[in-house]
């Protein structure tokens, strides 16, 4: 399957209105549904032309945050603006600057791909002719042109997501909100959609993306905000977040019952922390900037007569970040509250 990274050259996004300020800004956003606190004082800022990944488990408040920022919900307290337009006071004007694509692929199944895009384009205020031209353009670049005149109910899941995303792009809005854009997609469709999103950002579009997939945030986001229980509990680039968890770790798996002996040998290395032993594996935290650690470790283990099965330097993943910050793994749904929609 050819890559989907091409977006039409005419699709260049309009620059956000007040280019000096952030494209998206939220301060102290609160929203409750009955007793369920969905947002408990969320602060966010997204610079124009960048991608913010909003990362969190189910029920963390990601969807609620998107719904407030796209004017679908009014916040109970706090302020939020997109392109300098307030989500409450300037809601009407704001809507013409945003595109929303959701995890439920909101297209009309009975309309064809082209009819869907023409409808959305006309509701953005485009003429029928312009909407048609733009729709055709998008269908071609999203490789849906062969399916353009087929009702969307005949589309595969990946095709619907692409059509949904295309609908969000019809009016070339400067800011796009993607609510779990790849949830439920097969790996190939996910990769293709990632390519499409990267191409969009290259054109200058600002993207706020929610996801529960750490690899997705890692790949697409310039900055990541980790959200849990309606609060942003950490922010930064993927590297910054990983650095918060600590530096690299040397992991060694040894044969038989030689783990203690290996730990002793590794502890003798300069500038490392005390090794931890777990069964047949030994882990040593390595401060960043310490070089030559692998060669030295191999030499010392060899000298100590330890038989090594596997040895490697491991950088922390976003899973480690999440575990460190929240005390649970990212896809652990047992402790989550119901996602308030």
């Amino acid at each position, binding site marked *: 399957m050819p890559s989907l990274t091409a977006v039409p050259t005419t699709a260049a996004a309009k620059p956000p209105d007040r280019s000096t300020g952030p494209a998206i800004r939220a301060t102290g956003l609160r929203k409750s549904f009955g007793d369920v606190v969905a947002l408990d004082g969320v602060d966010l800022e997204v610079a124009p032309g960048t991608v913010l990944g909003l990362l969190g488990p189910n029920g963390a408040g990601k969807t609620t945050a998107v719904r407030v920022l796209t004017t679908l919900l009014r916040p109970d307290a706090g302020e939020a603006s997109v392109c300098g337009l307030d989500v409450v006071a300037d809601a009407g004007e704001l809507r013409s600057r945003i595109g929303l694509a959701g995890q439920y692929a909101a297209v009309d199944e009975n309309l064809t791909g082209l009819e869907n895009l023409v409808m959305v384009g006309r*509701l*953005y205020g485009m003429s029928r002719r312009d909407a048609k031209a733009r729709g055709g353009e998008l269908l071609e670049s999203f490789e849906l042109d062969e399916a353009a005149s087929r009702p969307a109910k005949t589309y595969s899941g990946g095709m619907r997501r692409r059509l949904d995303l295309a609908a969000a792009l019809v009016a070339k809005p400067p800011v796009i909100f993607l609510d779990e854009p790849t949830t439920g997609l097969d790996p190939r469709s996910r990769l293709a959609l990632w390519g499409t999103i990267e191409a969009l950002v290259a054109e200058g579009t600002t993207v706020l993306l929610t996801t529960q997939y750490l690899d997705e945030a890692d790949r697409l986001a310039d900055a990541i905000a980790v959200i849990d229980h309606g609060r942003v509990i950490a922010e930064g680039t993927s590297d910054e977040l990983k650095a918060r968890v600590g530096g690299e770790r040397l992991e060694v798996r040894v044969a038989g019952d030689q783990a203690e002996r290996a730990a002793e040998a590794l502890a003798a290395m300069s500038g490392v922390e005390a090794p931890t032993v777990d069964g047949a594996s030994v882990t040593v935290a390595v401060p960043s900037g310490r070089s030559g650690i692998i060669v030295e470790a191999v030499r010392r283990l060899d000298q100590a007569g330890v038989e090594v099965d596997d040895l490697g330097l491991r950088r922390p993943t976003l899973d480690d970040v999440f575990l460190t910050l929240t005390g649970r793994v990212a896809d652990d749904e047992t402790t989550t509250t119901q996602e308030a929609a």
Partner: protein
Amino acid sequence: MALVTDTAVVAERNLIRLTRAPDLLLAFTIQPVMFVLLFVYVFGGAIQLPPGFDGDYADFLIPGIIVQNIAFGGFVTALGLNEDLSKGLIDRFRSLPMARPAVLAGRTLADVFTNLLSLVILVITGLVIGFSFATGLGEILAGVGLMLLFGYAFSWVFALLGLLVSSPESANSLGFLAVFPLTFISSAFVPVESMPAALEWFAEVNPFTIAVDAMRALWLGAPAGNAVWGTVVWSFIILAVFAPLAVARYRRAAGR
């Protein structure tokens, strides 16, 4: 201006959908025809027409069954809006810079066309089985217009229903629960004089009776009383109450 354009776009979408889901169109055409045939040939012989009614049961029934069908016509709106809500399409619409009432206005406008279609089919069916107009073209057209207005008002009731209920199935059952007693305890199918006193009282104040009487006046030349204006007034009352309620509900509609 945006309201007019956006409403037209949404109405067009709903009419396109109708051609793509022919089963729905079939329900519009076959079901009312079946009702007419069942009533005329199963019950028709047993029903005593009111004294002074000039015509046979087919003449009596057609205006009644048209009123019932037009009132049911808005069902498509309830089902369609509920589906849009559960599929997330309402979220998309609400995130677009379109006129707020346009989704509902377009939906109900599309109902006017489907109502016109079912009305034409019922009239043709009626003409085949012995119904005949006893009035002039002006009154016949006035009757058509009155029905479209009456149906349009009810579409807004169904719009609200579709936004309130949790599933298309419950929209269906609630709608039937409301519409069946309202249309049956009226002059649509039998003379109200044949009912027990309490039902007769209800039937006489029932707006459906008023609408049916208006249609019999406009198409058959039966005495009109205040029925025609009464139907117009009822339609506007229903519109004035339910359109704002539905739009307010739409503004707050949360997808899931």
